[in-house]
Structures are given as C-alpha cells and as structure tokens.
C-alpha cells in the first residue's frame, strides 16, 4: 500500500505545481468558468488514458488509441447522430474487434506494438471513409451531458474523478480486475492456476475498446463535430498519462487515479503553455520536454524509493 501511495504522490505534486503556476500567471482562471476552460478536454483525454492503461496493465502498448478515438468520434458524429441504432452497433463491433485483437495477440504471441500500429492505419482509414472532411454533428444528449452545469465544481473536473473512481472499483477492487492485473504481474502463474490468458487479454483489450469508444463520444459531445484526425495526439497523451500517473510499462503496476491525474496534468500543461504565450511552434516540443522531464524526475524518485 505504501509504495502505491508513493507512486501517486508524484503525479499529484506535478498537478499541484502546474495548477499553482497557472493561477499565478492568470489569477482569473481561479473560477468556475476558468477551471472549466482549463480542463476543457480533460474528459476524453482521461477516458483515452484509461483505455491505454488497460493495455499497459497486461504488459502491452497500444499505438492505435489516437486513431481509434478519432474513428469513434467520426462514427458518433455521423451514424450515432443520424441512425442511432446502426451507430451503436458499429461502436459495439469496434469493441469486439479490440477484444479479438487481444485474443489474436495472445494466441499467436504477436508484438502488440506492431499490431496496434497496423490497426492505427485501419482505424484511420475507416475514419477517413466515414468523414472525408471535418463535419458531422453531435447527438443532442451528448452535447447536453458534456455541457452540464454541475454545482460548485465544473463537470470537466468532476467527471474525470468519477471515471477514476469507477475504474478503480472495477480494476483495483473487483475480483475481475484483480485477475486482469494478474496477467501483467505473472502470466505463467495465471496459466498454471487454470485461467485462460487468451480470454483475459481479450477482456483487457475489450475494456480498452470500451473506454476508447467513450472517449470518442465525449470528444464529439464537447466539440460538437468531428474529423478523421481529431484525436491523433491521444496516443502519446494516453501513454504519457499512464506513466505520469505512476504506471509501469511491465509488471501490471497501474493506478486508475494516477492515470486520470496524469491525464489532467497533461491537459493542464497544454493550457499552461498557451498562458505562457509560448509560440505555437514550441507547444509540441514543450509537451515532449515535459514528458521527458517527468520520466527523469520519476527515475530519481524510484531510485530513492529503492534505496530507502
């Protein structure tokens, strides 16, 4: 327990530091409206990060999260809006496809990186087919949901925390989550105990697909339209969010709260950079630099932990 808490400390500290810096630069951000603006896209980023976390939980990496979320956004903005039944059927099929990929990767011992990289082109191609040019419209209920005026604290802050809580209960507390984490922890032990790792990996990928779909839908609810490249950045953001949140690439060590806080930090970092009046040329680079910085700090942190 203590080491888990220690792992959460770093992301919480980085979020606090960033938030302090933003408030210092722009005191007016310290309001309901300001917070809502700062964390504008936090909900889809948090969901995408959770999707990536499911994959990292079973020792894989998903390089197709960005295009998958884009694809789901395109489906939501077109089919779900126009012919809801067909739209939901497509999204459900996409989740099943994700689960099937997980099973395939386990059955044939495939490198997940290459498979998901290949799939990123498939999702990207499908997105282009559905929406060759930016457009579409958000289903009304999604727009309403995303624009909900919650009391005191804006929904952009509340919703990610609720998501984290739900995933925490699912992954960290329920027995299903424990078994899924076991795959990342010691795959051979799982096999020996009689669990089907194929099914478990499929389940983890299926969950990733589910959260990817949710991310795409929420994104459309916020932006009210979609295009095929809408969420390409999410691949990096999601990986960074999981790692920032104290997750490890191997060993099934992940934390839903950490991942969501990591996602919030990254969303905030983008806002922070624009507050700094940093030229847009440097924004991408600054994100890369922040990621490298965090990994470096984490290395020092973990070293200290190992020494202690």
């Amino acid at each position, binding site marked *: *327990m203590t080491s888990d808490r220690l792992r959460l400390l770093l992301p919480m500290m980085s979020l606090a530091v960033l938030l302090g810096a933003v408030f210092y630069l722009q005191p007016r951000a310290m309001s309901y409206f300001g917070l809502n603006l700062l964390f504008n896209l936090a909900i889809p980023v948090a969901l995408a990060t959770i999707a990536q976390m499911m994959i990292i939980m079973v020792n894989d990496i998903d390089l197709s999260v960005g295009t998958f979320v884009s694809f789901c956004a395109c489906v939501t903005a077109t089919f779900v809006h126009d012919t809801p039944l067909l739209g939901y059927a497509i999204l459900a099929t996409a989740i099943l496809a994700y689960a099937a990929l997980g099973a395939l990767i386990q059955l044939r011992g495939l490198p997940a990186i290459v498979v998901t990289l290949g799939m990123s082109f498939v999702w990207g191609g499908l997105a282009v087919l559905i929406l060759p040019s930016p457009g579409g419209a958000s289903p009304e209920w999604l727009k309403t949901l995303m624009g909900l005026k919650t009391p005191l604290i804006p929904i952009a802050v509340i919703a990610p925390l609720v998501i984290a809580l739900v995933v925490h209960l699912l992954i960290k507390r329920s027995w299903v989550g424990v078994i899924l984490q076991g795959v990342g922890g*010691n795959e051979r032990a799982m096999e020996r105990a009689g669990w089907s790792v194929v099914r478990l990996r499929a389940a983890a990928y299926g969950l990733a697909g589910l959260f990817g779909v949710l991310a795409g839908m929420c994104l459309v609810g916020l932006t009210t339209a979609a295009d095929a490249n809408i969420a390409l950045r999410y691949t990096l953001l999601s990986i960074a969010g999981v790692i920032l949140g104290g997750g490890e690439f191997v*060993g099934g*060590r992940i934390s839903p709260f950490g991942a969501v806080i990591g996602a919030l930090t990254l969303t905030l970092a983008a806002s922070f950079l624009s507050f700094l009046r940093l030229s847009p040329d440097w924004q991408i680079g600054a994100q890369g630099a922040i990621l490298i910085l965090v990994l470096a700090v984490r290395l020092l942190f973990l070293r200290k932990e190992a020494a202690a």
Partner: protein
Amino acid sequence: MDDTEIGPGADPAPVVTLEQVHMSFGPVHALQAASLMISPGVCIGLVGHNGAGKSTLANVINGRLAQTQGQVQYRGEDPVQRNSQNAHNAGVRSVFQELSLCPNLTVLENLRIPYRTMPRRSWRRVARQKMQDALDLVFPGHSIRPRATVGDLTIAERQMVEIAIAFADRDREPSLVILDEPTSSLDAAIAQQLLDHIKRFCSAGGAVLFISHMMGEIFEVSTRIVVMKDGKIVEDQAAQAFTRSSIVDAMGHVAPEADTADNGLSRREFGPEIVRAANGLNARAGEIVGLAGLAGHGQAEALARLFFDHAPKWKPAREPEVVFVAGDRARDGVMPLWSILRNLSLTTLPEFSPRVMVDRGREANLVQSWKEKIGIRTENLLNPILSLSGGNQQKVLFARALASTAPVVVMDDPMRGVDVGTKKDVYQMIRDEAAHGRCFLWYSTETDEILECDRVFVFRAGQIAAELTGDEITEESILHASFEMQEAAE
C-alpha cells in the same frame, strides 16, 4: 484444519498412485518406470542429486506434465479430463522454488488467483480472512498483513505467503501438498514452524511430498523417504530404515574420484593473485576456486558482478580479462537462432579477426579444432545450436569461453544436464587449462565438482561463510558451513 479429521487409516484410498510412469523430453529420459503411492497421513521426503528427476516427478504428480507412458491415478476421480484438472480436483497443491505470486497484487488478492471458485460477494473479506487464517496456522506470530503488496515483501515473506496459500482453506481441502525446497529462503525459526505445521497437517490426514537437500529436515518430518537417481526411484522405504549415510549412498556417492583429483591438485604452485572482489572472493593464476553452498545463496550474483565489473560495455576487448560459462543455457548462454559455429565463436571474434570483418577461414578452423578437442557430437557445425542435446550445447558454451585467451574463467554451475562422460572430459580440460596458468571460478551445486577445486568459498545468505583449502574440502565441511544456522537451531 480440525474439520478434516480423517485420521490415518480411516480413508485408505491413496491420494495419488503412479504406475510405471515414464517421462521423456526428446532423447532425455527424465523419469523412468516410476511407481509411487501417496496415502493420506504420510509425509514423503524426496531426495536425490540435481537432475535426478525430483522436479519432473513432482510435476507429473501435480499434473503440469503429462506422462509419456504409464498411469497416474487420483483419488476418487475418473481419469477422463486432463491430469492438471484431476490433480486440482483431488486437492493436490504445490509450492515451487520459482515464485508463482503476482508481485503487483496484494497478499489476499494472490489467494484469489488459484482459488478460482471463490464466492464473489464480498470476496475481499473472505480472502482476507482465509489468508490471515492460513498464515496464522502455518507461521504463528508472523507479521505479514494480507493487504500488503507482494512486491514490497522480502523474499522470505513471499515464500511464506506462497506456502500459506498452498495450505489455505479453499473450495477443496488440500489433500496433498508438494513442497519443493520450501525452506531455501526461510530462516531457521520460520523453517521450524513450517516443519511443525507439516507434522500437524499429516497427522490430521493430509499428505505432503517434501523435496529438500537438507537431511535434517527430511529426517524430521518424513514418515517415508524416496530416493531418486538418474530418473529412477531407487529407494522407497519408511524413514526409520535410513541413516544419513545410507541415503547419501543411495543417491550415488562420488568420493573415490574426488580423492585422486584432490591429491593431484593440492601440490601445484599458483601464480599471483589476479582476482579480488569486495566480498572477499579472490583467486590466483592457475587456481581452480570453487563457490559452494546451497543454491541461491548469492554465488551466481557474486560471479555475475565479478564478470560485469571486468567486461566491456563500451569498448570491445581484443584481450578480454574474463570470460563466462553459463549454466542456465537458455537465459545466459545460447543464441537460439544461430548455428553451432556462430555460437561457439561469439566471444573470440575480435581475438582472431584482425579487423572489423569476421575472418571466416580462421573462424572455421577454430571451431573445427574445438569440436574435436571438446567432442561436440554433430555432423555439421552449421546446424542450429538447438539441434544439439543439452550436454553438447553446454560443450559449445565451454568452448566459447575456453577458446579465448582470457586469464580468468567464470563458471556459473555449468554442468546442468551434462552426462557423466562429458563431465569427466570437462574436468580434465579444466585441470589442463589451470595447469597452463588459467584461473577458474566455479560455482557448482554438486559436491563432486566442488571437490575438484583447489580452494572453496562456501556462501550462505549472500556472504562468504567459510574458506576451505586442500584437505579441508570435504562434503561434510561444505555441508557444515552451508547449514550452520539450520543445524544450530536443531
């Protein structure tokens, strides 16, 4: 465990019966005509040298391996399903040396993994209670919290958790618990708790298969002792019928050969000291230095550290200081995609090639000469390395290191899976090389190999516990130094 009152004799049906079981991996017969009956209430002590087939026997009993011939019958079950399912249904559980816990989960969550049919409602409370009960039962006074993450525990605590899970109350009562070297990382007091629990468990009608190198433990808990040698069960009698020396005799003793080797070696002169490590390990030119002690007490780590301290990470060395012979071939030695030739020449490439290109003529000559020198049995050196038997693969790894001019050779238990004939050849080769001034650091789990050495460091718990030279190097003194703590506790 009180509700399992069966009592010896009340249920005469054996938990598991093996009849003429054979197990072979390709050309290797790991188990031959093994017949064994394990009844409730007995504790069988299983002894034998490394590679005698103990682990294979255990794996056949717990159903992880399917026997190639013969019958395995479990209590009360029709053999319709796979053995692993039958074994599970019959209540066979096992604890092996490789940890099978998930380090990222908590102790109580780790109970959930083998306990597949745990009630789903408030399972955490159930698991916590059962884990706490099991730990309290086996290791009273322990300080392990069921909610601790396994990765944060010490090795000994993890071993304790694993043992407790095996004895824990799950959907089925444990009828037979297989323990493979369970005390290897436990201290004396904890080990004693385990032995006491085994006795309680057996008198309550449970059966235990206890695999150990520690004679004291074997005699303390066993009601029956089974001795294995070369894949066969050579003795199977009540424990009272044995003495320490009769067991050692049955396992196969290697004393006579060691005597002659000792006499020949101890008279030699050695060169200057060329190895000295922080932990006190040292060696002189021309010397064969043994690293002894129980498996996993820091010998392999000491050797690896020594090697990495002297091996290049950045600059290739034309004259390497130290070369390494791996014992765990798959992990540390063999390049599985390569031919025998390429595997053999890897270390010496910069030594025989003048420039950046591989001198293939010299490579072929070198490999051919070593094939004859060390006797690699193959028609074609371009065959994949994995086409060779384990012993021949090991010879290739020996040749890879010995072909170098490095003055120090580090060997990490290099004789695993090597047959007796090859062993003798290699011993001779090592002696010859040492006579030419090479220094060998040799970690071995087998006493007959340690007896080949000029000087021996006995390791215990990562430290050097004793340094023996010349006539002091005997099986008894090595055992004494390795077991000091355990023996003292008895």
